[in-house]
């Protein structure tokens, strides 16, 4: 089967709008989240129940909780090394994993606790020419 990355309706909230799903069973905010089929339910990653949810727009700002610098990239990203991937703790407490951008990918520059903000960028382009978009984080301007 050939690869495709078309953003499907059921995951577009997470990919395009940085929106999480608040589980109505246990209150955990799931990010990213995918609707079960075409239903209005998710499988909560915390309580494991197939539950109803409330969409929750996440904060666009946060700080770096942890990060790594990738020097040997997986297939499709060879042209981009070195680059940094971070766990970002958003101001509302939710942690997300995302690429860092507009910053020198060097531990001398990137620091744990550094303030960042979400920006909509190209994530990758696959062989058939489709472009995948989503969120990355860049250092917040003073």
């Amino acid at each position, binding site marked *: 089967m050939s690869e495709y990355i078309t953003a499907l309706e059921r995951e*577009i909230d997470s990919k395009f709008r940085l929106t999480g799903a608040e589980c109505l069973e246990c209150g955990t905010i799931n990010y990213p989240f995918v609707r079960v089929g075409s239903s209005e339910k998710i499988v909560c990653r915390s309580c494991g129940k197939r539950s109803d949810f409330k969409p929750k727009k996440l904060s666009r700002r946060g700080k770096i909780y942890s990060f790594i610098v990738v020097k040997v990239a997986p297939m499709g990203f060879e*042209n981009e090394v070195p680059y940094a991937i971070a766990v970002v703790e958003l101001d509302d407490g939710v942690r997300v994993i995302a*690429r860092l*951008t507009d910053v020198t990918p060097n531990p001398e520059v990137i620091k744990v606790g550094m303030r960042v903000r979400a920006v909509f960028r*190209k994530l990758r382009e696959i062989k058939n020419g489709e*472009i995948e978009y989503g969120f990355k984080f860049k250092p917040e301007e003073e």
Partner: protein
Amino acid sequence: MKIGIRAYGAYVPRLRIKRSEIAKSWKSAAPPGENAVPGMDEDVITMAVEASENALAHGDLDGEVIDAIYLASTSTPYESKQSSITIAEVLGCKKEIRTMDVKGSFRSSTQAFFSAMDFIEAGKSSNCLVVASDSPNAAPGSSMELNFGAGAAAFIVSENELISEIIERYSFSTEFQDTWRKSDERYMKDLEDPRLQSLYGYQRTIPEAVNGLLKRMGVGTENFDGFAVGEEDRGMLRSLKKILKIKKDLPSIFQSVGNAGSASVFLSLANLFDDAKPGEKILVASYGSGSGSDVFALVTTPEIDKKRERLKRVSDYINKAEYIEYTEYLRLKKVLWR
């Protein structure tokens, strides 16, 4: 019924290349100034999203209030597949929205703007987002390569809470081809005769349009406090000042951003708005090969001061620059691969 601009936002990529850096590689004369370059993960859509988000933030608005999105560009990532829909989804617009990619000319931005005005005038909409985002491509070593930059600017056209009202508009079109790109080609081309191009291109078309507007309004250029022009090259402002007998200094976006295609005229207007006081009259003129020009006159309102605290200025972006070398530039333009 007053129609005008409710809010605006801009975006200029962080990466810059000095024109002297390009000229050095080709052993040609080095012109002053620099051009903005989209990063590896940027394109027309991502630049348009950031400019549009800034516009919504400036107006303290939610994506749901937008009834139509017009994306003006000559370099959308897809030739077929609408890019404005991606922008609508990211901004969280409603599904019942009119989306349109307006392409094929550097004046597509002002034409999209006029269409948005018509849409509101017809009573079909109350808030339209018009965003111009462009990163035109020139062949390595060509003279256009020294001029092309990138950027985006967005305006929310509306009837409510206007920071500026449109007074009058005018369009002029006549057959003349100075720059072009055929649909199966990657790079823009020109006549390779800058004097002929400017003489029969913008030096004729823009004054025709401006004079048509001024005649309709019964005023002269001395009645205006600011002029926003889609700059294409270094001599454009100087020659237009002379032809149109403009006394005022015209700030240049071209010097620090380059020719950002259809976004140039919007960036220039956004830059004027950043410092405009209420009651200022501004004349806006675009130019596109083909050729034609759209002009409109507007006046700023007291609302422009009230909204300024939520504003992200064009100069905020211009002042944040990271300079790259020519080989890195070619890599970002997908001429070289590593």
